[in-house]
């Protein structure tokens, strides 16, 4: 039987003469969909970064007026001064866009789509049509989210956590009108899109692996996507349920999240019987696993990059996989640590504190394995490796910060302060951002057949990682000084007067960080057209995607038979003039070590 007939259903690669639209717009090819996700996510990141600029301008220079911004954004900057409601909308949308529409799109859906089929040796995802739907529903949800800036009252302003009653009562804050409704609808689309893509990844890992690709021969990247997808599938339904209930509260007169006796802005509400605490539980039941959905793929990507640049097998592969599994399981039962001072039962507070600390064990083991993978290696400090080291560094410092917040006693002082902001930016901001840049530099040759520029890449690393670290490391200590988050200005309080200089430093570093991203944009676009042509395996790596051409053909591996013979980290072996053996090298030529 010819291989032309062995394709995934609904995906006919025997017709390469597909038109432009079928090929690049409504494509069923997982590689195109992955790149579409990545590009969409990067564009959303620009929006998120622009919003971050506005936030930092306000916090760094609270007394300045901005005539230019007043012309650009007449509503938000009437008279050149940022309006508090605009600030809240900006903070809310910055969080939402960065978490769901940048990190989730680029790192989980984007790289996940691109890498999982290639790395398990499949021709495509298990459900190409669902995959395409997933992207277009996702794109719709991103557009909808952006559109909410332009409705009456502006975008949602209740924070990315959308705590009711602020998000449930239209009069509580300007963005709680149409903006909040669109936010909820957009999230519903996002969840639909993510569920389709998650089911697809699970199915692909289950069903279309190449012969010989046993579970214990999958790269850590695939493992991390697999576990992250399962987590997403288990956790998202709670947010879907909560979003439906919040929509009912807002538009159908129910009181799922509204207790009796509310008087908002002098108006007496007739609701009774609900509790805002219920929303917090349902939200964080998703929210906490969601951060692992983002961070596990970042760690997986770093774990695949590091061996290629140390020329040494990853340290503790099986142990790391078990750590991912353990972290995934534990992440489902610790969500209450976001709510220690919410008035929750002190008894469950103790439980959540102890359970959260338990995550330390697998996460430390995983981190130590990553660190030990560097030890004794022959390191080539290419750009992907630089960013992977940054992943490791931020993962370490962010993880140590987690010890403060998971601990109920310390959290009493630190929750809702800048310590939290610093912590989660290190983790789901930094670890993921560094992995995104590392991954883009690493797989760019595979995606587009050209290398990215090393020199610009190195400059970009220095101007990204250094300010990033300074900003969010300092924010931890702003939190220790008691600075609450989501403040429009720190000018109203005496005890925050000392933070003035720190905010100035943070804002200045933020400007450097954001400005330096233009280096990346230039590098990306320039390399796309002018970059040096890439070899099939420029990094001398072992996983399956490097055994095909750059960029891979429509069916990924051409007509060739594909059989996997070994684990994905066969480095440091004698193989002719090479020091590695890719997963397709038969055991006769190079002994199989794992």
């Amino acid at each position, binding site marked *: 039987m010819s291989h032309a007939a062995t394709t995934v*259903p609904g995906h006919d690669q025997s017709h390469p003469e597909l038109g432009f639209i079928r090929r690049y717009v409504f494509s069923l090819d997982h590689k195109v969909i992955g790149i579409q996700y990545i590009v969409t996510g990067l564009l959303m990141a620009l929006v998120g970064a622009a919003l971050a600029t506005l936030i930092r301008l306000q916090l760094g220079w609270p007394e300045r007026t901005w005539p230019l911004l007043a012309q650009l954004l007449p509503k938000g900057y009437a008279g050149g001064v940022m309006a508090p409601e605009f600030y809240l909308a900006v903070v809310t949308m910055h969080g939402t866009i960065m978490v769901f529409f940048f990190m989730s799109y680029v790192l989980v859906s984007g790289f996940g789509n691109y890498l999982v089929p290639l790395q398990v040796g499949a021709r495509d995802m*298990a459900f190409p049509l669902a995959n395409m739907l997933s992207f277009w529903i996702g794109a719709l949800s991103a557009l909808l989210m952006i559109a909410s800036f332009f409705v009456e009252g502006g975008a949602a302003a209740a924070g990315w956590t959308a705590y009711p009653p602020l998000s449930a009562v239209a009069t509580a804050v300007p963005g709680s009108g149409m903006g909040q409704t669109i936010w909820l609808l957009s999230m519903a689309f996002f969840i639909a899109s993510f569920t389709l893509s998650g*089911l697809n990844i699970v199915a692909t890992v*289950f069903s279309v692996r190449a012969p010989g690709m046993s579970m214990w021969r999958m790269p850590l990247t695939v493992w991390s996507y697999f576990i992250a997808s399962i987590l997403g599938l288990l956790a*998202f339904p*709670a947010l879907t349920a909560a979003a439906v*209930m919040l929509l009912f509260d807002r538009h159908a*007169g129910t009181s*799922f999240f509204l207790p009796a006796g509310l008087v908002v802005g002098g108006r007496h509400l007739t609701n*009774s019987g609900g509790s805002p605490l219920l929303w917090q539980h349902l939200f964080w039941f998703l929210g906490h696993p969601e951060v692992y959905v983002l961070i596990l793929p970042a760690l997986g990507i770093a774990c695949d990059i590091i061996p290629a640049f140390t020329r040494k097998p990853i340290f503790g592969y099986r142990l790391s996989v078990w750590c991912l599994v353990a972290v995934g399981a534990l992440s489902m039962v610790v969500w209450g640590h976001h709510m220690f001072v919410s008035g929750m039962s002190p008894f469950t507070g103790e439980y959540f504190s102890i359970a959260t600390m338990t995550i330390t064990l697998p996460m430390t083991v995983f981190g130590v394995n990553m660190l030990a993978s560097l030890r004794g290696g022959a390191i080539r400090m290419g750009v992907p490796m630089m960013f992977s080291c940054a992943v490791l560094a931020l993962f370490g410092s962010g993880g140590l910060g987690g010890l403060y917040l998971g601990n109920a006693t310390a959290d009493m002082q630190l929750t809702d302060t800048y310590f939290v902001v610093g912590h989660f930016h290190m983790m789901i901001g930094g670890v993921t951002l560094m992995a995104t840049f590392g991954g883009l530099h690493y797989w760019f040759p595979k995606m587009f057949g050209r290398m990215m520029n090393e020199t610009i890449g190195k400059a970009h690393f220095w101007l990204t990682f250094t300010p990033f670290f300074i900003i969010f490391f300092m924010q931890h200590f702003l939190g220790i000084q008691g600075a609450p988050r989501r403040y429009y200005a720190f000018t109203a309080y005496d005890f925050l007067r000392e933070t003035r200089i720190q905010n100035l430093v943070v804002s200045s570093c933020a400007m450097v960080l954001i400005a330096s991203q233009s280096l990346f944009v230039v590098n990306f676009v320039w390399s796309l057209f002018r970059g040096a042509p890439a070899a099939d395996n420029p990094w001398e790596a072992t996983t399956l995607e490097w055994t095909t051409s750059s960029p891979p053909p429509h069916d990924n591996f051409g007509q060739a038979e594909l059989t996997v013979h070994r684990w994905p980290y066969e480095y440091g072996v004698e193989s002719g003039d090479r020091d590695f053996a890719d997963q397709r090298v038969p055991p006769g030529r190079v002994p199989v070590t794992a």
Partner: protein
Amino acid sequence: MMPVARPAAWDGGVCPFAAGWQRVLMWWFIVGDGLLFGAFLAAYGYARLIATTWPDSSVVFSLPYLAAMTLVLNTSSAMMASGVAAARRGAWPTARRWLLATTLGGVLFLGMQADEWRHAIAAGARLSGNPWGDASFGAYFFLITGFHGTHVLLGVLILTIATARVATRRATPLGIELVGLYWHFVELVWVFIFTLFYLL
């Protein structure tokens, strides 16, 4: 459309849950969708614990009527199982009859649920309040049964399509089995709603 048989060479050689990926996927969907109901029911339990008084739903709603609704759904589910067995045997005419009966059962259930809603609304129940006590009672009643009813409606549509495909000989045993899994899942959810909302 169920895919045609593919050479095992591209199937990874191993099949983790020994169930074929379509079945595994269906189960994952069931788990995810089931958790949606799980969240609604957990929220309902939460609201009920907060409330100092809660109406006794077995007094508000007629228990014999509820028993009849359960019987209809239950019978429909058993007929679906029989239809799947017939499809597996290749006895397509039998399968078609069972599927048709299943669909009718679903329609009957929907009609009964609509009637129950009509009665509740006539008695003054609204999303924002109800004559029997705590406002959450009515809200959760409409939310949970409405969501379940939507699933039944979706199931009826899927069953109709499946029946038509059986009639035109385009169905596969696996396809019918997946439809069956969904339909049994709808009954499974009803078991939870029946116990946790109507009886407890």
